[in-house]
């Protein structure tokens, strides 16, 4: 068991139990939206802008933002903050760029999953299949990397062993996911988004009452210095490019946001979804920033000893706040993990049940898809927990699959595919193959110290996939240009 920085109090334990019970209740209520494949796997055209906005923000902000992010700020200053300050306004930017066209696709065809849209746009089972494999692999890998973080959090919150922590956290999530699938994920995510926002206000109060908001102590500290308070941070400068770019443009490539664009009831709901999602995420990103600098301030002033385990930075800061604030912030951390986990469980099971099977020529009858999807949710969950705990080096390698992987498969497919008539089937197939292979090969090469880019590899995989899709589209015309399905024409005129 880890060093106990937080003492589990009745307030923290009580708030956690209430949080879980309410999540389960909402998830069960959402069963009424999950009677069809579209409802179970996509929540398609079912929710208002407020629900979608909060759910998007909650699903995009993961444990990494609340635990890993502050750790990076503590270690390197501002550099990693570029990720989170890019992401918030990136929501509305994404809605400007492809929001209306994603929603329009739900009227042009029957949509339950993202690969459904890809298949229809490019008239290709291959595109559907490769995208499904990519999304599923990235979802499982990403979720696996969250398992230990979740276990540590439960250990700090409830004082239980990590094994029990995993069982409680993921068991309660599965308890409603089995009943309501993606619809349950969306509704509970909205609730969890609210919990996160409450936690944010706790963090703001705690940070300013603790530090007074002055960073000059850090600049003048021998342990830190000016690079920890400037706008570039202590990481290599080129990382600012990757972070600012991939996390601003890349938001619209995240399934956690893309899939929500067709879940809004009407086109008018796009407005609230885009604005509320961005503003909510923007507020939650204050946790990343303030908790990181708060931990740094504690060390710079000598109030705490320096920490070695970066994941402890968040807990160090929270441990210095009062009992109620601790409960609010810790519940927000829990909400960040659970909301992301529920989405990815649904994404992976949908990709396997509906898309991979279909792409391989075994289209599962619609009536049976939900039943099989439920079984696969359990399989995905067990796989993630097992892989997360016993995957060893493979987890360290594949745990980096996530944001960049998703952007590299979805930006060519959806952003280019829905903005550019000339984007062809052949181009997307090649871009997807490149993205899947490169995203798996690059971290393996890095981990075995064979080859390393002087920047995060996903900048190369996203940019490479876009360049391949562009160049190949000029020489091929499958489902593009004059071969574009005529039903797609109205979408391009929107």
């Amino acid at each position, binding site marked *: 068991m880890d060093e106990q920085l937080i003492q589990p109090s009745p307030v923290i334990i009580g708030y956690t139990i209430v949080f879980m019970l309410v999540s389960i209740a909402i998830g069960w209520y959402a069963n009424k939206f999950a009677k069809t494949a579209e409802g179970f796997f996509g929540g398609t055209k079912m929710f208002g802008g407020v629900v979608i906005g909060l759910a998007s923000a909650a699903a995009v902000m993961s444990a990494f933002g609340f635990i890993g992010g502050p750790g990076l700020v503590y270690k390197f200053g*501002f550099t990693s903050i*570029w990720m989170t*300050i890019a992401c*918030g*306004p*990136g*929501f*509305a*930017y994404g809605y*400007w*760029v492809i929001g*209306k066209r994603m929603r*329009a696709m739900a*009227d*042009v*065809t*029957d949509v339950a999953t993202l690969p459904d849209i890809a298949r*229809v746009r490019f008239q290709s089972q291959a595109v559907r299949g490769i995208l499904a494999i990519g999304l599923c692999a990235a979802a499982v890998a990403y979720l696996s990397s969250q398992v230990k973080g979740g276990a540590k959090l439960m250990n700090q919150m409830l004082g239980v062993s990590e094994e029990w922590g995993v069982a409680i956290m993921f068991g309660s999530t599965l308890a409603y996911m089995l009943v309501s699938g993606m619809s349950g994920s969306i509704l509970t995510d909205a609730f969890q988004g609210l919990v996160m926002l409450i936690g944010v206000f706790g963090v703001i109060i705690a940070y300013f009452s603790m530090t007074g*908001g*002055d*960073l000059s102590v850090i*600049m003048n500290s021998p342990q830190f210095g*000016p*690079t920890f308070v*400037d*706008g*570039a941070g202590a990481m*290599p*400068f*080129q990382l*600012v*490019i990757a972070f*600012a770019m991939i996390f*601003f*443009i890349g938001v619209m490539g995240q399934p956690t946001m893309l899939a929500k664009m067709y879940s809004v009831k009407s086109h*008018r709901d*796009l*407005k609230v979804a885009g*604005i509320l999602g*961005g503003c909510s995420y*923007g507020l939650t990103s204050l946790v990343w920033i303030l908790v990181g600098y708060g931990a740094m301030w504690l060390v710079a002033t000598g109030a705490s000893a320096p920490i070695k385990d970066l994941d402890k930075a968040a807990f160090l800061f929270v441990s210095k706040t009062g009992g109620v604030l601790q409960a609010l912030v810790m519940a927000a951390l829990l909400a960040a993990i659970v909301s992301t986990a529920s989405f990815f469980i649904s994404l992976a099971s949908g990709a396997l049940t509906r898309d991979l099977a279909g792409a391989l020529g075994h289209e599962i009858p619609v009536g049976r898809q939900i039943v099989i999807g439920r079984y696969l949710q359990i399989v995905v969950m067990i796989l993630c927990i097992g892989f997360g705990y016993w995957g060893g080096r493979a987890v360290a390698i594949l745990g980096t699959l996530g944001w960049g992987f998703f952007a590299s498969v979805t930006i060519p497919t959806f*952003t*280019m595919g829905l*903005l550019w008539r000339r984007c062809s089937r052949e181009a997307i197939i090649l871009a997807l193959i490149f993205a899947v292979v490169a995203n798996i090969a690059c971290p393996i090469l890095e981990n075995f110290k064979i080859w390393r*880019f*002087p*920047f995060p590899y996903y900048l190369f995989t*996203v*940019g490479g996939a*876009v*360049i391949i899709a*562009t160049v190949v*589209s000029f020489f091929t015309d499958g489902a593009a240009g004059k071969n574009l*399905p005529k*039903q*797609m*024409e109205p979408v*391009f*005129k*929107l």
Partner: protein
Amino acid sequence: MLVAAVCWGFVIYASWVGGAAKDNQLIYFGLLACAVLTVVYYLMGAVVNEKMSTTVLIWPVLLNGIFQAIAFTIVYTTKGQKMDFIMGMHPGFFAAMVFFWLGNFVTATLAYLMLFSSKAVPDDEWERFQKEIAGQEKLH
């Protein structure tokens, strides 16, 4: 899309060569290419019926790129320097938060709020879309 692909290529080049050689000026140019890239996607996505109004072109589209370029420039020129703080923040920190974070909110989120019904997703365009697809079979 060709311009976007060229920008992506330059961004990778600037990160790669600039990172390996620790050439911060090249990396700064890569950052400026990022600002251009965001404008390119914005231009393509914010059109309505293949047209873009001058209002949208200026705000939010071009202003978005300008705010990003200002933020990157200040961050680059103040990187690693001990300087007087602005509102409790280092000038580079201040530029990132005000011009990049807040600036992007103004040119994406606020603009979406203000222009949604008139310029982003006008009701009449959506109704025209619905009429067009009403007469056709669902695409499979």
